[in-house]
């Protein structure tokens, strides 16, 4: 949560906003985690996170505290993640449908062994399941089930109306369950947990 800013700030900004440093300190993990959940692969993670914080830095004076900082941040994270995926698609058009999965599982950046090593089996499973969701469902799922945001908050972060959000949450849960079922089926057929 943002530090409550009560001291009057002399100068133009009408509503006091948390400092950039404070936002970074409290939400860097949130940003990295959710970019990854939204399908930004390891190779692009730093760039994407940097983009998020550059936007945050620029737009922070606009933040009016009407919504939670996490909701506000999520709008930026989602935008950057979408943008990043588009860029990647443009750059790797040959990789077809399971592009995202390929990225996560195979395209490990060799120069960042620390990060690869960090990715545990359970995270890889979750990411590969998320990869099976389309963009809308993936966002809805991450926000509702992993961040446990409320539908009205999601509506704000995603610029959607609340009913659409509810519909997406439902669809995303269904899609995720199907992905889990396929995952379990693969597990039993190969005889190894993967």
């Amino acid at each position, binding site marked *: 949560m943002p530090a409550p800013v009560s001291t009057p700030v002399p100068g133009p900004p009408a509503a006091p906003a948390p400092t950039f440093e404070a936002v970074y300190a409290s939400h860097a993990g949130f940003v990295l985690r959710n970019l990854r959940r939204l399908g930004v692969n390891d190779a692009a993670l730093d760039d994407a996170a940097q983009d998020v914080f550059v936007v945050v830095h620029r737009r922070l004076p606009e933040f009016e505290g009407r919504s939670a900082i996490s909701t506000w941040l999520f709008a930026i994270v989602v*935008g950057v993640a979408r943008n990043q995926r588009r860029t990647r698609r443009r750059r790797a058009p040959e990789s077809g449908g399971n592009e995202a999965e390929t990225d996560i599982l195979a395209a490990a950046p060799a120069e960042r062994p620390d990060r690869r090593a960090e990715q545990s089996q359970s995270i890889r499973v979750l990411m590969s399941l998320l990869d099976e969701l389309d963009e809308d469902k993936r966002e809805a799922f991450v926000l509702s089930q992993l961040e446990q945001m409320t539908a009205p908050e999601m509506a704000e972060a995603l610029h959607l109306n609340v009913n659409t959000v509810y519909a997406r949450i439902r669809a995303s849960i269904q899609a995720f369950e199907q992905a889990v079922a396929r995952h379990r089926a693969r597990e039993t057929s190969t005889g190894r947990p993967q």
Partner: protein
Amino acid sequence: MKQHHEPDLSLDARSIIDAARLEEGPSGVEVERLRGRVFMHLGIAFSAGAAATLATATATTAEAAVASTVATTATAATTATMATTVTAAKVIATTSATVVGAGAGGTALSGSSAAASVATTTAVGFFAKLGLGGASATAAKLAIAMVVVGASAAGVVSVSRDDASVATPVAVTGSGVSPSSDSDPNRSDGKPASSRARDAAPSNGEIDRGSEPAAKAVVSPPELSVEPKRPDARGASATPVAATESVKSAQVDDPLAEETALVARAQSALASGRYDEALSALDDHQRRFPNGVLSQERNGARLLALCGSGRRAQAHDAVAAFLAREPSSPLASRLRSVCAVGSTERSGSP
């Protein structure tokens, strides 16, 4: 709101999520690395702001601003790494003056002065933090990154490119629908030093307002900064004057400092057009630190040196590859302009 009933996740699905969340991170290392990168980027804003100040203020003010930056950082710095940072700050500030003095269109940065002051505050905070946390790798990297980005006329240009590239996501999130409105001149928050740099000259009022808080921000942190109590205070004696010296002395036993110093040497040579000297420092670096922390900076600097010295053809393929690999690196925008490799010719090279 209607009472939609959301289906609950199955226990199986939930257990997968819970297991992953336990280990999701990110690690402190990742957060620190990102901190370095983010600051590196904001360091550009800082140097651009410094340029604006220098452009309109008198030379004396400029000197004072540089001096206070250096002094403040020196106070906070007790490690060799921090001493390196001092040099970096100094180089940036000085070079910014050169940029503007040369009339490189950098005068129109008034609008970003507020951003600059924020960035400055943030900057010093970061330094203090990094110094205290002893995350010397990050600190050194960002220090050198500041040099890399700030130490030439193209620094101002690179601000613009980077901001523009980030503007797309803003547009997406901001309006929900509207496609990239990079060129939107009305983004009052925008602080794209870019658009300002392209625009007209600033009004003095804005400059004054901007430069003033920036200076304050630079001066105040000593009170804030807890005294770092690191025993290995190699750079403890670093004074503004001795900053350059301390980089050399730091080479003695800290490979990272040595690496930083090498790239810094290359960068300052590059900034003043001594391309062969820059290349030879980079060769040194490559020999000694083939996989160093600053490899990316080295590669970028080498390409800049090649292009700068008229060997664009020689560098072309490598530049294209670099841009494909690191499209949003702060170096990328400089490479595009210096090497004239536009985004239009994003060739199919790997």
